[in-house]
């Protein structure tokens, strides 16, 4: 439960500008979808929040505070793939989060402490519908089940912000629909801020309370990397909001040029 602020954020690699002039306030409890063409800096945007990347200029703030430039337990993530640990069972994967926090040296729990953590883990595993698969290894799970596990694993840390990097991109349409039905109640129940990058426009509109589109509004054909992506659309999708005026930001960008 927390707000994220982007204050005039630029990301550049040498001459290549990836993101430019990103100003954004993400209110606590928002389900934010990010869409945009490939190479528009969606993943970079996510990595900024994750702490994997630093802005070249500007600042990203969590609850008004800067955060360390490395991933931490207040920002959970579910990747498209490789989010779960293949050497741990379903239960072990979720349990790991508790073990890491409670036992700095051995990272293992014993006795009653372990029992309590196992109980909490089982509840989370039940919540994502993996109850009967507690003792299986991820390699025995389908893609959708692995993503469920990854979500349960992230929820164990009760992150302030949950980042989803194309979490359902590799799933078939039926499984994807199931995952949509799963994630929305979890988001409400845990009152998290969720930031989801997706290529699926329907998914982006269907799940989110707010949607931003990243694109490069200015293009120099001689130097395609000269200008970075900006927020070209910013739509409020909550039910009681005024009807979003499509394109009003793009109009202001064009006026500025």
């Amino acid at each position, binding site marked *: 439960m927390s707000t994220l602020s982007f204050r005039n954020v630029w990301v550049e690699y040498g001459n290549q500008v990836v993101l430019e002039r990103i100003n954004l306030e993400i209110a606590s409890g928002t389900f934010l979808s990010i869409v945009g063409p490939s190479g528009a800096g969606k993943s970079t945007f996510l990595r900024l929040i*994750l702490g*994997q990347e630093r802005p070249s200029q500007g600042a990203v703030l969590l609850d008004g505070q800067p955060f360390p430039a*490395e*991933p*931490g*337990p207040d*920002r*959970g*993530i579910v*990747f498209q*793939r*490789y*989010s*779960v*640990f*293949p*050497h*741990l069972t379903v239960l072990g994967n979720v349990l*790991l*989060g508790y*073990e*890491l*926090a409670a036992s*700095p*040296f*051995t*990272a293992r729990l014993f006795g009653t402490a372990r029992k309590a953590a196992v109980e909490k883990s089982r509840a989370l595993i039940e919540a994502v519908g993996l109850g009967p698969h507690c003792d299986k*290894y*991820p*390699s*025995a799970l389908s893609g959708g089940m692995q993503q469920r596990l*990854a979500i349960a*694993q*992230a929820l*164990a*840390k009760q*992150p302030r912000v949950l980042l989803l990097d194309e979490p359902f991109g590799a799933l078939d349409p039926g499984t994807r629909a199931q995952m949509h039905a799963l994630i929305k109640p979890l988001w409400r129940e845990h009152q998290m801020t969720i930031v989801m990058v997706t290529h699926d426009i329907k998914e982006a509109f269907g799940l989110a309370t707010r949607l931003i589109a990243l694109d490069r509004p200015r293009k120099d054909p001689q130097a395609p990397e000269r200008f970075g992506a900006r927020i070209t659309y910013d739509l409020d999708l909550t039910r009681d909001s005024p009807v979003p005026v499509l394109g009003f930001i793009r109009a202001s960008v064009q006026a500025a040029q």
Partner: protein
Amino acid sequence: MPRAMNVVPNRGSRLLLALLPFLLIALIYVVGSAQRRADNPEDKLLPPVAEMFSTSKRLATEPDRRSGDYVLWADTAASLQRLALGLGIAAVVGLALGLAIGLLPLAGAGFGTLVAVLSMIPPMAVLPILFIVFGLGELSKVVLIVIGVTPTLVRDLSLEVQSMPREQLIKAQTLGASTWQVAIRVVLPQIMPRLIKCLRLMIGPAFLFLISAEAIASDVGLGYRIFLVRRYLSMDVILPYVAWITLLAFVFDLALVWIGRRAFPWAYDGGAR
């Protein structure tokens, strides 16, 4: 008629096909041995199977007249102890260094090149140095195995760590893991199957170093015995010893496979990795 590449033998014929080359080699040996004996009753090059058998039996069941030891078992125990120590130390050092170099960019920058260079030193070339520094006792033989095996383990395991998906390391950090916790709970268990595979491949080189060291300076050991009886052209000792060493190596290989499957079932489930 299907293409040759699509003809798959069933279980029974697979076993038969596997045995066939062995039987063929045995047959060729028996015939060759009989022929040489027929030409020259004093021939030592291809002793008959019965002779090798009686010699092996004597080595295994009768105490040596001079030392009172059961030669085969004394040799085997001495060699296996050296081998186990060498491989064990190499495995521990390889795991620790490989993990550090693979996981920590600082350690990689500091030691990566050093290990790459060290691994190019032919271990046999430094054997004289080992004999000078560590003496002719057990230590120099164990150290030779360690020196021969460790660089390969370190390089392979560090590459294995680096080839792990970045996502996993980031995920672990978002679960609140420290570097140490990532190392022992995420990376270490995942490179253990690779260690098993490496050790399987290193059994051959380890025996090579062991037998070389024993051949040059030792008073007991499988390699020592072979090189000792070579002076008397005792093929009836050498051949059974070679077969015995091969059998031991083969059993170790099987044992490692078994340990790997038992200890790391996730690595073998459906051949995910």
